[in-house]
């Protein structure tokens, strides 16, 4: 077989398998669409309910401005919020705390025999990923603090 024929066959096979992958992705996107529509309606519904509730509660007079300090946010998804606000030192201490917690959980889950039930396996995988993501965020934050 000539080099040209080999290249041509390979090209056809690559295109064919890319098409197959694309077909599967379209099917997967199809499964997501109804959920997105439902999600959109439920968000709109919730917002509408919140507005109505807000109006009802605001009707009584003598509103005063709330000056209570924002509580320290400790959940994983708020770390990014702290970084965006420029509160780098706070973000760093939250990350370190979360890393410590995940590390402790992971240690408590693992055993010497390396045998686990399904639930424990999921939890181990979850904690490992959490640690990796937190470590990545910590490294990026360290770079920011250096500047």
């Amino acid at each position, binding site marked *: 077989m000539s080099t040209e024929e080999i290249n041509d066959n*390979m090209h056809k*096979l690559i295109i064919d*398998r890319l098409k197959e*992958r694309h077909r599967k992705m379209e099917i997967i996107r199809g*499964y997501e669409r109804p959920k997105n529509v439902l999600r959109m309606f439920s968000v709109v519904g919730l917002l509408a309910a919140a507005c109505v509730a807000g109006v009802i509660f605001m009707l009584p007079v003598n509103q005063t401005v709330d000056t209570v300090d924002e509580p320290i946010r400790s959940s994983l998804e708020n770390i990014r919020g702290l970084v965006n606000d420029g509160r780098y030192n706070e973000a760093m201490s939250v990350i370190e705390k979360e890393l410590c917690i995940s590390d402790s959980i992971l240690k408590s889950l693992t055993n010497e025999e390396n045998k686990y039930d399904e639930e424990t*396996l999921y939890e181990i*995988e*979850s904690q490992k*990923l959490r640690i*990796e993501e937190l470590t990545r965020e910590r490294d990026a934050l360290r770079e920011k603090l250096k500047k």
Partner: protein
Amino acid sequence: MHRMLNIHTKKTYIDVEIVLGLQSRNRDIERWFYNTSKQYFMSHFGEVFFDKDHKDAIFQDAFLCLWTQIENGVISIQDNMVCRQQRNGQLQPMTCSLHTFLFSIARNKYREVVRSTREIYIEEYFEGISSDILYNQGDDDDKEIKIRIVDECIQMMPPRCLEILTLFYIEGKTLDEIMQIRKDKNSSKVGLKSAKYKCMNSLREKITEMCNRLNLTI
């Protein structure tokens, strides 16, 4: 056997049924498996990722990888058990459920995403990914093995290469259209053209390398 409950239809499928259903392209089982896997993934890994799009993309990529392995016969049924082909070509019963296996794929996909966001040459990218290609020495014909090799190499491509090649070759977009879709990701049309060429070239080289190891020609 691992049974997963669908709270909506109360229909459950065991892993054997899922593998057979996916191999026969049963749309109901495909949809059911996707939805239950997603629910399970979000409940166990939902808190790990900061970015929702990131999380969705990783899940979908991992699901696609598992689905392809099942369709290609890398994961199949033998003696009424779910088995996976090992490097020596032997089928071994899987020691975990399809869900657990899916999550281990997701973890590798996550690492690939992290790698691809850094400045890295395409060739280095391929070398850095550990190949999970299974070399069959059984009765499968050469065509099936070549398909697996190509699928595996496509799965290993950096996400941006996958995007560019799909937009160009599958969706038939022009370079100008691809520049618009990808917005600032490519500095110029010449840069995009060069990236497309490099992506395809690296993919071909990887496939050739894998085929040569097995004395296969495409």
